[in-house]
Each structure stands twice: as structure tokens, then as C-alpha cells.
């Protein structure tokens, strides 16, 4: 069994001070079950401390380490070297930041700018319905209601879906923003539905989706995003 791979990373770099873009190659000896975040850290430790990239939880729960590897948007904390070699059928990997927001440095993008689109749909309960029983403080959701949209609540806003979407990132609020809006329309605790519908059926809303289903294909949380957007087109 192969235990280590000699891999080549071609990383798209950007220096904001010099306004310089270039691709830098790194040769790394990587253990087969190292993740790409481990490989990047190894580069920082052993070869180049200036290479900038981002991660936080490194357990596929925060969406910070998303990037494009050989063109596929994914979470680099979830991709093992041996799986990458198998999936892409190569030991050379081109690594780019997601193109959903302006770049800050190397693989780091301005997430605040990316989040602006999600914030437009107000991803929280605007007007909570009062508790439905006297003896409880919070509104309870029936399992049947929850079943309809529970998958969508797993979204971590990693923006992989936005990066893969056929609609450009110029006007569309993005699949994850649509998902956040659909969830709140389906959530029985939310009384303010109209504001959500206004955003969904806005020029930058569902009309920008062409049911290419790339969002569902790449979502690391395995959410069928396109299904929820289609529900919005059909009528919620």
C-alpha cells in the first residue's frame, strides 16, 4: 500500500501590496491520509510561511477552508490526499480561492463581502410566532414540518455552491442565500413571510437559477440545494 505521495501543488497567489498575481509550485511529500489543510500547513512550516490560507474548525463545520482544487469547489479539511489522487487521477493539484468575493491575499477571500448576499435574505427569524403551549417558552416544530426542510438547516455557508453555479456571481444572490430564504418560509416559527418572498422572487433571486444542479453536486453537507430552489419556483 502506498503510504506517502510526492504531490505537486500549483497555488494561485496574490500579493495586495504589490498588486501581483502569480502561480507558485510546491513539491510536498504527503502522507496518504493527510488532508489538504495539513498539506498547506506543512508548506507553511517547511517551505513558505508567507502562503496565506484560511481555516477554523477543520471538521467540515465552519466553511472557512473552502477553495477550488483542480476546478472543484470543496472543503480542504475534508479532502484526503489519497482520495484526491484517486478522484482527480493525478498527483498535481491546482489550488485557487473561490471567486465569489474579492480576494484579500493568496487563498483568502473577503468573506464579509460574500456574506452580504446571505445577509440580504435576513437568515434569522424576523417575527417569531408566540409559543403554542402555555407550559413551554419556545415554539415547537412538529417532526413532519421539520422533515421538509431539516436538510437545508445543515448549510454552513461555505459558498462552494455559489462558486459552482452556472449563474455568474454578478447578480444572483446565490444558492445558499436562496436556501436560507426558503428555510425561513418553511419554518413555522416565522410569521414574516412576505419579506422573504420579496427577496426570493426578486430579479437577483430564483430567476437567476437555471436548475443546473451544480450546487447540489458540490455541496459538502450533501444538501440538495437545487431541490429547495425548485420548490420556491413551484410555490412554497
Amino acid at each position: 500500500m502506498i503510504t506517502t505521495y510526492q504531490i505537486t501543488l500549483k497555488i494561485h497567489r496574490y500579493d495586495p501590496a504589490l498588486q501581483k498575481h502569480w502561480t507558485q509550485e510546491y513539491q510536498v511529500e504527503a502522507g496518504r491520509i493527510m488532508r489538504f489543510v495539513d498539506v498547506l500547513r506543512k508548506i507553511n512550516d517547511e517551505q513558505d510561511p508567507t502562503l496565506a490560507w484560511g481555516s477554523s474548525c477543520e471538521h467540515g463545520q465552519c466553511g472557512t477552508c473552502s477553495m477550488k482544487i483542480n476546478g472543484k469547489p470543496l472543503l480542504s479539511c475534508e479532502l484526503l490526499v489519497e482520495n484526491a489522487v484517486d478522484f482527480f487521477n493525478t498527483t498535481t493539484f491546482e489550488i485557487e480561492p473561490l471567486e465569489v468575493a474579492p480576494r484579500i491575499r493568496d487563498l483568502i477571500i473577503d468573506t464579509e463581502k460574500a456574506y452580504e448576499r446571505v445577509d440580504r435574505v435576513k437568515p434569522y427569524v424576523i417575527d417569531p410566532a408566540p409559543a403554542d403551549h402555555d407550559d413551554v417558552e419556545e415554539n415547537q416544530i412538529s417532526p413532519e414540518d421539520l422533515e421538509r426542510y431539516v436538510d437545508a438547516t445543515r448549510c454552513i455557508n461555505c459558498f462552494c455552491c455559489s462558486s459552482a453555479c452556472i449563474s455568474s456571481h454578478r447578480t444572483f444572490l446565490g444558492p445558499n442565500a436562496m436556501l436560507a430564504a426558503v428555510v425561513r418560509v418553511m419554518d413555522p416559527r416565522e410569521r414574516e413571510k412576505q419579506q422573504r418572498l420579496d427577496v426570493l422572487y426578486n430579479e437577483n433571486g430564483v430567476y437567476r437559477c437555471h436548475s443546473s444542479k451544480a450546487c447540489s453536486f458540490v455541496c459538502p453537507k450533501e444538501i440538495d440545494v437545487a431541490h429547495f430552489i425548485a420548490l420556491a419556483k413551484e410555490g412554497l
Partner: protein
Amino acid sequence: MKQQSRLGTIPGISYVQKTARNRGWPYVVAWLHRITGLMLVLYVFLHILTLSGLSDPVGFEQKMQWFQKLIPLFFDWFLAIPVIFHSLNGGRLILYELFGNRLDQPVLRGVMVGSGLYLLMLAVIMIMGDQSVSPFLFWVYFFLASILCGYLVTLRLKRSGATLLWKMQRVSGTFLFLMVPAHMLFMHLDPVIGRDAQLILTRLQSPFIKLVDLLLVVSVLYHGGYGVIGVCRDYLSFRGAQLALLVLITTLFFGFGLIGVKLLFLV
């Protein structure tokens, strides 16, 4: 390591394979839908322009003969590829978006197989030539079936909160779902059907055929125009540019609509 397939070494094919690997086949199909949609718009424009020559029947026939020499028959068949693919895939998208069909993969396979079968049938008909058919019966059948399809989608759309313009794009698409492939089929049943100016003019005398063609022209131009605006809206973020585009495309499609309608009532 997996063996690289031979096909994958051809640049265009390897690009498509990589795209499908990274974003899935439905994404590739969505691009094909978009490209064929835009091709059809150009085709419809050209079609209306050549038919507008019917006001001068002799000139029209000369032009058709010239076309026949210049463009081999197989090119006509070739043009049916984007038509049938876009129609069937449009039907698939409507099933997915409006009828809650989530068994999308078998339907997608059906689109591919169905397109192949249609093209085969068209080729056979073109080779056989000389099929006589009653235009009235042919169009009664397809027209009624198309109206029924459009009606079912209209009913379904009642629940949707989308704009009327968007709904009309889906309804017009559904109406065209059978009408456009049928139109292509009809034109090839007999080679003279679409080239003999007198025959076309006589056919157009019938109020029923006029109605069929009128609805065809209006729905194709509405559907295509909305489609083109939609594609541009994906990329244009400036309000001013969006507005300019809206005016430009609406004028263009309206202009072609006028030419088409004038043609129908010329005779």
C-alpha cells in the same frame, strides 16, 4: 491510479469530462440548453427573414433553390439537433421545477434517447421524401396537444409566486414543446412543402393555419426574448446596462414579431 480514457485525451472532450466531474452532468446539460436556446434564436430570426421574401413568390423560390444548392440537405437535419434537444430538455426542466419530479436522472437519459430517436425518424422521413399529409389534420393534432400541455402548466403555475412574465416563459416553452419539433417534421414530410411559394401561400389562406402560425411566432419570440434577457441579466449588474439591454432586445424581438405577423396576414 486509474487509467486515463483515450477519449479524455482529446482537448474539448477532456474539458467537458472535467466539468462534469467537478459540477455534475446536469450542469453541462444546462450549458447545452443555454447554447442551443441562443442558437435557436438566431435560427428563428433567419427563418423569419427568409420567409418574409414570400411577398415576392418568384424571388422566394429562386432564393430557396439557391439555398438548396448552397446548403446540403444534411445540414437541415443537423439543425434539428439543437431543436429537439432544447425542446425535450426544456420539458425536463419544467417537470423538475414545476411538477416536483426528482427522478431527474432517468428523465435526462430519456431526453438523450428521445432526441436520438427523433433525429433518426427525421432522417428516415427526409430520405423517403414525398410523404403526403393533410396539413389541417396534422396541425389540429399537434396544436390541440400543445394547447393542452400549456394549459396543464398554467394550472400548475397558479401556486407559484413568480412574476407573470416568468410564468409566461414557462407556458410558452410548454406550448412549443411539441409545436417546434412537429414544425420541423412537417417541413420535411415532403421537400416541396417548405420551398414551393404557391403551396405555402395556399396553406396560409386557411384561418386555422394562420392561427397556428401566429401563436407559434408569438410564443417563440416571447420565449426566446425572455430567455436572452435572462442570460444577459446573469452577467450585467449595472442598472443602466440592464435597462438598455431590455429596450434593445424587446425592440429587436418585437420587430421580428411584426415581420412575422405581417407575413401571415399578407395573404
